[in-house]
């Protein structure tokens, strides 16, 4: 088992855990954390896709032989954006949860039952 598989496995595990928490958690914050965990796992997965075993940072340098074995820079750039987006999402989520706590007086998801009919 090489390092790549370990990375993939662990980040997929994180994603699954995230979904699992979101599915089973009762507290809204917990659910948000689950979603966040899912995002984090995804981000890690993306980075590990771009990872080359033993590669170096993708920086232009005077030594072309180093340049041969660099990790893919694009996923990293993407993940950077994705992290920012994830933060925004969670921030929005937290804001909503805050309001929910104000209005409903609870953070228990099973108490959110206004919209049924």
């Amino acid at each position, binding site marked *: 088992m090489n390092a790549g598989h370990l990375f993939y496995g662990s980040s997929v595990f994180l994603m699954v855990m995230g979904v699992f928490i979101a*599915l089973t958690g009762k507290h809204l914050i917990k659910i948000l954390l689950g979603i966040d965990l899912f995002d984090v796992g995804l981000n890690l997965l993306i980075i590990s896709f771009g990872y080359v075993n033993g590669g170096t940072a993708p920086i232009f340098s005077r030594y072309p032989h180093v340049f041969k074995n660099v990790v893919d820079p694009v996923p990293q750039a993407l993940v950077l954006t994705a992290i920012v987006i994830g933060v925004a999402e969670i921030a929005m989520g937290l804001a909503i949860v805050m309001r929910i706590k104000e209005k409903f007086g609870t953070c228990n*998801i099973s108490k959110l039952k206004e919209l049924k009919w």
Partner: protein
Amino acid sequence: MTMFYILLVFILTGLLTLFLGPIKVLRNIVALLGYLAGSALFIYNIKPGLIYSLNIRVYNIHFESGFSTVFFGIIILAVFLIFLLASFHEENDGAYYLFAFLTLTGAIGVLFAKDLISFFFLFETMSLFSFLMVLKGKNKNSPKSAFKYLVWSVFGGYAFLFGTFLKVYTTHSVMIGDISFIGGHIKLLILLLILTPFMVKAALMPFHLWAPDAYSDSKDAFTVFFSGGLSKIGIFGYFIALFKIFTEIASKYPWFLTVIAWLGGITATLAGIYAFMQDDAKKLLAYSSISQLGYVAVGFGIYTHYSVVAAFFHALGHAVYESLLFLVVAGVYYRVKTTDLRKMGGLIKKMPLSFIGLLFGIIATSGIPPTIGFPSKWLLYEAVIMKGDLLLTSLVFFASITAFLYSYKLVHSIFLGKLHKEHRDVKEAPLGYATGIILLLIPLFVLGVAPGIAVKHIDYIIRFYLKPELGYNLTTMTTPLGHVNFPVVGIVMVSMFVLSLIIYFIFGSTYKADQTDNYTATEAISDDFELHYAGEFYGFMRKAFGRPLKWSFEKLLNAFLKLFAFIGEIARGFYMGDARVYLFYLVLFFSLLAYLMGGKL
């Protein structure tokens, strides 16, 4: 091009009335002028055989005029005139005329349509705006009735559309044309689907459920057009479907025609029975209208030259007397503000012209010579007997007996019997109604005595499809079973009447007695004494019919709807979880797809 212009004139008239909204007189004049312009265009320019196409990028609109266009067009336009005359006295606003004229546009347009998509477009236009017209209605129930009408007519429209697409798919032609060459039984499905909206429009059972409510709850003037005019589109549709679309129906699926004929007979009978059980004038007339349209279906179902001529003639007659009856009831409503048969009575002295209108209306409805109702009924009986279906003949005969029952109930409850106290100062119906009544009485007698005028035209319509067998000239009709000279019947009646009058005048004199001066078996009667026998007029028949009277299509339909409602509740249950449940759906969906793709991955 004229065909297009005619429709345009009607649409523009409708829009113009909408924008000239506030002034009633102006509105009425514009409506009348627009109508006259359009119908003048129609009468002078529409000859059989005109063709016109208009391209709007993806769809081509094809128009064509035939004998049937002219026949039905004139009926519908004539009835619309009556409607307009009555409308002048209705509470109307701009939208009222807009909807009415767009309904007319749809109705006339349908007659022109050569391809099925245009047909559908115009048919739906008609349904839609007549729905709005009903929605504007006159009482609290109108919206509900309008809703029923909408659902039913759209049901029909969609069936038609489905049929259209099946036809286009199988024949690669969107034109109204023959489908008998298609292999397999799909052609029957197409026919059935295309026929559905017309069965709905012509209120053939079991598609009639909307009709009594919609007829009785729309504005009185509009009911005239609704029943007299729009139902003709249903008849026109029978013609289109059974003759133009499936020309070989008689040889390929004779049982289908038999079913139509029997449905017609059952409609005529049951609607007749329901009619005489009603206590509301418009409801009664609505059922009577349905009943009369049942005869037409019988005529089409028998599918011989005789019967189809009878059907067309009956449709014509239906337009005349049903309009007349609704018009009179509208006039009465205008004066006494009710259509409840239990609250009227003795109006003959106050509204003699209306009485005459109603009297001859019911005489024609019952099919008594020498009115327009007789030739078609006579011919229909002959045709059914010739076909050899004696049970159907009996059923139709039974239906025509019910016509006597409801006719008499109508005329008695409104005009005969005791005058109510609060109706002492009622006046004759105003000019518009009166004009309409007189206008309608003319064809009622003329065509009753000289049916040849119309039969000739009807013969032109159908002789292309059926071997012309009926012998006729202006005043007579001859079938292998019998022969009638209609004026002779009329003359005999008139001379016999004169003779009776002579006898009447020879002997003694009469004096006028008040209505309170009655035999009441020692009971002294005053004005407050309720002697009018109107409610539960045929109440005892309820017992005679017993339980079957309580059965209805409506209950069956409701049970069916409940089933859908139940399924709907289940479907809705899917959307009633909390956020985690929704997420669960997502995960489940993902896993399911991943599993299904597993083999390919």
